[in-house]
């Protein structure tokens, strides 16, 4: 099998793979993480709210999305979003959303459910005695959250958020079902065009492995640095 292994095929495809494919993969990962963390924080706050309706809505959101396969959500949003857009804008025809926007929305919405759970766990991991001590010195709720709970919760959450981002980085490859050229999509196109299936998929695997493995090693080091001695 490796007798005919053509390193040249990989080398020639590099500019396309990275300039087109990896750029898109990293962009989608970054955008979905950024908006996912914001949306996730809002959902986590709702989930921890004492207003029952808010917490139940948030729980429904999280449980629903965590119970569905990502590919299914990608398809659902891709096919349903134009009709939702039509219904909202009362347009005569389904609104054109496009594969790119649709994938950004999908990953943001999907990842927000996971980020929300990470944040909720982080905030709830702070012992109630800390809350009492914060109130005890006279802090208001917002000050107590800002100076006592969140700084501690953040240290627990941050490594987990990064790990989830690494998972997201790998999951973005699923956009190939929408014919978007991400890194894996680019590799697969070259593989079929040049008939170099083994070379391209092995190379793609190697790249995903190196990036994910290096990143998770870094997160582990970060985790040790952030740990609080109790």
């Amino acid at each position: 099998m490796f007798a005919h292994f053509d390193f040249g095929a990989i080398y020639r495809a590099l500019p396309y793979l990275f300039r087109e494919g990896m750029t898109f993969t990293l962009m989608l990962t970054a955008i979905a993480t950024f908006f996912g963390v914001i949306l996730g924080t809002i959902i986590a706050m709702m989930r921890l709210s004492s207003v029952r309706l808010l917490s139940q809505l948030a729980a429904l959101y999280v449980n629903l999305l965590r119970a569905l396969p990502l590919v299914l959500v990608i398809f659902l949003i891709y096919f349903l979003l134009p009709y939702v857009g039509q219904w909202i804008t009362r347009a005569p025809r389904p609104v054109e959303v496009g594969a790119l926007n649709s994938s950004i929305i999908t990953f943001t919405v999907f990842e927000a459910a996971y980020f929300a759970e990470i944040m909720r766990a982080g905030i709830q991991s702070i012992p109630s005695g800390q809350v009492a001590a914060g109130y005890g010195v006279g802090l208001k709720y917002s000050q107590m959250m800002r100076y006592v709970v969140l700084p501690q919760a953040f240290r627990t959450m941050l490594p987990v958020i990064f790990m989830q981002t690494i998972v997201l980085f790998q999951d973005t490859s699923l956009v190939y079902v929408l014919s978007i050229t991400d890194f894996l999509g680019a590799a697969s196109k070259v593989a079929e065009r040049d008939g170099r299936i083994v070379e391209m998929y092995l190379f793609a695997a190697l790249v995903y492995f190196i990036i994910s493995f290096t990143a998770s090693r870094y997160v582990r080091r970060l985790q040790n640095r952030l740990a609080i001695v109790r």
Partner: protein
Amino acid sequence: MAMITLKNVDKWYNPQFQVLKNCTTSIDKGEVVVVCGPSGSGKSTLIKTVNGLESIQGGEITVDGTSVAAKGTNLPKLRSRVGMVFQHFELFPHLSITQNLCLGQEKVLNRSHDEAVAKAHKLLDRVGLTAHADKFPGQLSGGQQQRVAIARALVMDPICMLFDEPTSALDPEMVNEVLDVMVQLAKEGMTMMVVTHEMGFARKVADRVVFMDAGEIVEDEPKDAFFEAAKSERARQFLSKILSH
């Protein structure tokens, strides 16, 4: 003059379970009152109602004339004037000792950073921990952490102090270093409400002893009367168990 008053205080955790039943007592300015009783008797809950960390469903509590449970009360402001020391210290683990002592001063009392640090160091000196000012709570022993916690309460210039079992989470050899600080504080005339099993401390500095059982204040007596001739059978039993060693 009464610094802290509790009048017919009722608290339910749920409709079936009443933790505080019609509790009434008061603590004068400069008085030291020890609250004792078997575990589960409601003494920790009682002391936490004084600065509003636990809500009440009936009765009234006042601190320096301000009603704690009334709707319009500025609880953060009231709490900033009442020092509280917890069983498990509850220092902020992500902040250095000095930062622990400055947080309330800067964010609640709006003192300048320099002013807050100077005050923090003064109080650390007082509890004998100047050398540890830049360490983190996790680097100190339990006894040292509890002394820092007392200093954290004192930097706010409180009008009274609440101690919720301040020595019961400590190794035996560290109990005295904490009690010494408390005795000193009592001698200086601080108004103190102390939930504790340390009967030696009670004998030494308490003016009165409140004995609780099953959510009720069973006895509220001057110290000598309580130790020499507790009126209720329950208190006598409690004392015989706790003092027999």
